[in-house]
């Protein structure tokens, strides 16, 4: 373990950030946003993805994965509950968009809050009875919930069953900027804005009462309860906020893809998003973003070995977990030490 300590990207980044003054911080943030915002123009470089268009890959899977991983990170990383059915909220958002978008005159931005609300309601409804369970049992119940949502849309007539829903409208244009299938830059910028909003929300919450409550619950739920933390309430909150982010991602996904079908919302998506969170570093926003970017981007980058790409993906998961079990960019040491002690007790 000692050998790798010099390669500590997280502490290096943190020290720069902590030593910088306010203007410097603003500059760092603006430059990073600009650099990421320019990514869609990098399609011609070594980053290019062989088969899918680079713009499209940046929106889905990369951008969407980052967004959903951030949402799932609130549940798994911040408050330590294992959720294996996250795709359910994504599906709820997507189907809200698909059904309202094809049957009413509402546009994507008007449907967005409705989709988020539905996902949150589902989160509360699932959370109230199940969040009393812990650990693996919670994982199983959420996994079951994810499957139930998929099976319900697969077997119902209002969702057009296995045929899925086509002709979902694109978002309306912003002045001269138009959303189009061939050129997905605008979608990328929208996803980016949503990601920034989510990061901002998580960072605000983390330093306030809910964040402290989640941290306490993650470290020791019984102790937190004894100290007067209303654990169930904060667990439901965490679950619901995660659901809201998933729902928002779903609405945008449906509107971008123009067509959705139940087979897009399998357990594999939940597992993949969880893999992004753990792979990057549970609980650390930047780690999660890096993990989701790599895992979203990698399968498309290595499409030249087209058939074996998922095989390589699996191998990468095994190898990275074996050599960096806390993820590529783990959370701060102090927190980690406490978690370890708790886990082995």
């Amino acid at each position, binding site marked *: 373990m000692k050998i790798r300590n010099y390669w500590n990207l997280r502490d290096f980044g943190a020290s720069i950030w902590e030593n910088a003054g306010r203007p410097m911080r603003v500059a760092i943030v603006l430059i990073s946003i600009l650099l990421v915002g320019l990514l869609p123009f990098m399609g011609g470089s070594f980053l290019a993805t062989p088969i899918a268009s680079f713009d499209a890959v940046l929106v889905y899977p990369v951008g969407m994965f980052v967004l959903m991983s951030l949402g799932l990170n609130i549940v798994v990383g911040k408050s330590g509950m294992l959720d294996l059915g996250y795709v359910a909220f994504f599906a709820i958002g997507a189907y809200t968009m698909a059904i309202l978008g094809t049957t009413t005159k509402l546009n994507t931005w008007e449907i967005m809050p409705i989709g988020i609300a539905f996902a949150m309601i589902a989160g509360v409804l699932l959370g109230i009875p*199940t969040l009393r369970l812990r650990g693996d049992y919670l994982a199983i*119940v959420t996994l*079951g*919930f994810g499957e139930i949502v998929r099976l319900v849309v697969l077997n119902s007539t209002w969702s057009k069953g296995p045929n899925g829903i086509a002709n979902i409208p694109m978002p309306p244009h912003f002045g001269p900027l138009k959303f189009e299938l061939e050129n997905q830059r605008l979608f990328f910028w929208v996803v980016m804005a949503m990601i920034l909003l989510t990061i901002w929300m998580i960072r605000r919450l983390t330093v306030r009462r809910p964040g402290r409550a989640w941290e306490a619950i993650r470290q020791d739920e019984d102790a937190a309860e004894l100290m007067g933390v209303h654990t169930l309430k904060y667990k439901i909150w965490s679950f619901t906020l995660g659901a809201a982010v998933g729902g928002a991602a779903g609405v945008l996904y449906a509107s971008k893809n123009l067509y959705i079908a139940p087979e897009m919302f399998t357990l594999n998506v939940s597992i993949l998003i969880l893999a992004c969170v753990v792979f990057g570093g*549970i609980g650390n926003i930047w780690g999660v973003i890096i993990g989701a970017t790599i895992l979203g981007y990698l399968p498309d980058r290595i499409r030249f070995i087209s058939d074996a790409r998922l095989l390589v993906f*699996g191998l990468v998961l*095994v190898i990275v977990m074996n050599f960096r*079990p*806390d993820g590529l960019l783990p959370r701060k040491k102090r927190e980690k030490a406490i978690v370890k002690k708790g886990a082995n007790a």
Partner: protein
Amino acid sequence: MFSVLIDQFWSLTIAGVALGFIYVLVSLGYTMVYGVLRMINFANSEIFMWGTFGTIVTSRDIFGYTQTSAPATGGKLALVLISQLLMSMAVAGVTAIFVEYVAYRRLRAKGTNRLATLISAIGISIVLSELMRLLTDSRPVGSPRVLEKIILTEVWGANIRLDTVVTIFAAALIYFLLERFVKLSRMGKAIRAVSMNEDAAKLMGVNLNRVITTTFLVGGLATGAAGFFYITVFEYTKFNIGFTMGMAAFTAAVLGGIGNIRGAFFGGLFLGLLEVYASAVLGTQWKAVTVFIVLVLVLLFKPNGLFGEAVQTTRA
């Protein structure tokens, strides 16, 4: 709606028991590993899938059966079936040990968090299923019919078919043998000791690594046997067949109380029957939903499963 259930009650029951025994064996793979490691053996579904392929390869490539050849009879039949069963168990057992070695051992030695191990197990299960997908060109593989599906007799209007009878009796026998092994043998005692208290077992001189490898092996053997019975009844397999089976068997393990071998037995049978009845009443497409709803209800009102020990609070 319920008339189907009443009309065909006995034939449904027999089909349910046969399916239930397959679930029992697969859920042993989950429950044993969970008992020892307190971790979900995520790759067990792929171990099952590899077992089904082991079965088909034996009859098709070693004994040269094709889709059109006549079913075996007499001594040849017994020979083919037994070597299929052994092959399936061997393939699954080796795969299980491989999974333990690659995905679990190193992480366990480091004492890392459970999520990392879960992801590494997910990784290995992707590798196993993708490898098989590449080997079979994503195509489903049919099994040549070795055991002719003769209708033996009719009881209360239900046809008793040879393959279901073989499945029920042989699977019950294998379950019984494994249960005796864990109950009576020295190794079984060590396995139970580790699942009760890992640290104390280690202090008493139990070789932890060997116990864990054996647990994976025993779970793999049971799962492999299930693969053979699955092929005998359904005669078909595909690279992604493990998923549905894994979910159902895992549900069965939880229903009975995960970590508990007898729980896996009752959970598996209960789930097999429930699935068959539910698909008769509500239609096949809703059977998975019924299963999950029952699972959620059981977890809510009897969170340790029907026969489980209290693990849900101690291991958060």
